């Protein structure tokens, strides 16, 4: 779900970079407001690498397989580090594996990163009310995972179909929109379930990780 180089026009890629600079600046400002911001950098960095590696895990969905995105859980765990972490992950993808691109780095970061921040706030809701329970962690884990990937898919499809350098009629565009949206529904469900299972696993094994970086 990364938009490669060569597809989007310059105004869109420039707007993507502008939005990325603003969100990164805001995230870094929030991180610097912590008592000891340097203390969290190794934790955030290693978890960034771990999320990057975890995205190589494939789930068999015959006749193919899908890989995890985990931007919802990443937002839930890393908080304000989530956007820089996604930016770094996408940069590695573009430079090392030629997935995504350098001109589209900003747009792709917005597509993946903004929903991660939304997921962070969704996951925080579990702390309200009574004591944290596994059920609440699971429910808000599912919601943060599914909502994050759902918003990412919607942004990806909209940006792509409105900017692709091709003369598509309204009927074709609408058909493509529906096809892409329906094709991604299983991914949204799987991502939600995996985020639920992962959140419950982390709460059982190492609950401190869920307290955020």
């Amino acid at each position, binding site marked *: 779900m990364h938009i490669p180089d060569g597809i989007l026009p310059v105004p869109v890629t420039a707007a993507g970079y502008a939005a990325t600079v603003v969100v990164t600046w805001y995230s870094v400002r929030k991180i610097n407001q912590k008592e000891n911001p340097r203390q969290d950098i190794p934790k955030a960095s290693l978890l960034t*690498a771990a999320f990057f590696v975890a995205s190589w895990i494939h789930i068999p969905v015959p006749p193919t397989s899908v890989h995890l995105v985990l931007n919802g859980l990443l937002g839930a765990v890393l908080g304000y580090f989530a956007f820089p972490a996604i930016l770094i992950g996408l940069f590695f993808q573009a430079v090392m594996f030629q997935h995504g691109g350098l001109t589209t780095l900003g747009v792709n970061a917005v597509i993946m990163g903004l929903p991660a921040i939304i997921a962070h706030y969704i996951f925080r809701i579990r702390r309200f009310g009574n004591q944290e329970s596994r059920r609440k962690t699971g429910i808000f884990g599912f919601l943060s995972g599914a909502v994050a990937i759902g918003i990412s898919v919607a942004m990806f499809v909209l940006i792509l179909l409105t900017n692709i350098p*091709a003369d598509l009629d309204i009927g074709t565009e609408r058909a493509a929109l529906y096809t892409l949206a329906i094709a991604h529904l299983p991914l949204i469900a799987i991502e939600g379930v*995996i985020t639920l299972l992962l959140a419950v696993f982390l709460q059982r094994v190492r609950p401190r990780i869920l307290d955020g970086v």
Partner: protein
Amino acid sequence: MKLGIVDEYSDLGSLLHRWEPRCKLIGLMVLIFAFSFVRDLRMLLAMVVVTITIYIISKLPVSFILRRLRYPSFFLLVVVLILPFVSGQTIVMSIGPLDLRQEGLIAVLLVVTRFLSILTIGLILFGTAPFLTTIKAMRALGLPAILADMVLLSLRYLHEIGSDLQKMQTSMSLRGYKKHCFSTRALNVAAWLGGSILVRSYERSEWVYKAMILRGYGYAPTTRGEFQTNSRDVITLGVFLLIAIGFITGDILYGRGVAALLQ
């Protein structure tokens, strides 16, 4: 998944290898954005010529780029296969029930040429200097310290965590786990696998932080003047900026490319 090492030929001695990293970063990134501006087919030809010329100057082996083209974007492949049949009105030929359209073919040509040219320049940018030097150049150009530290630390542990995952997957296979069918068990196993990777990394990060503090993390003297720019670097940067301006001006002067060509 094998990690793609992009700076394996960073010790060659070409003009681009010797170019001061900050100037190179600015010059090649501006050129990349100029390429993404191009919509005129005649400018596409010039783009291919410029890209090949820069690649030859960089002295990077052809195998370096061919290996990376082995994993082209799946998404790009889909665009290439679908666009010629759905975009535009002018039918060039019919293949069974499918109509091949001129506008779609031109759009594919545009997308693929821009993609390959930008990818090649990106590989030259990161392939002609050690990755650490390029990150330092980004830092010198204003990349926040938090981001620079995160990039370097993530990269440092990416290989180790990747190798952990590989070992865990091998252990799972040896114990009889088959990942070919979809089931709730498959989802559970994937979640436990991902969770184990996260827990291990979290624990490791606590040790890493202590080790970094002991080595003076956060109190290192700021290094000034790490990069020295000479007149040759500035002239090379000027040439690349002129080429980039040339592409943008040329595209504007030739009219709005594809649209003008179809009229």
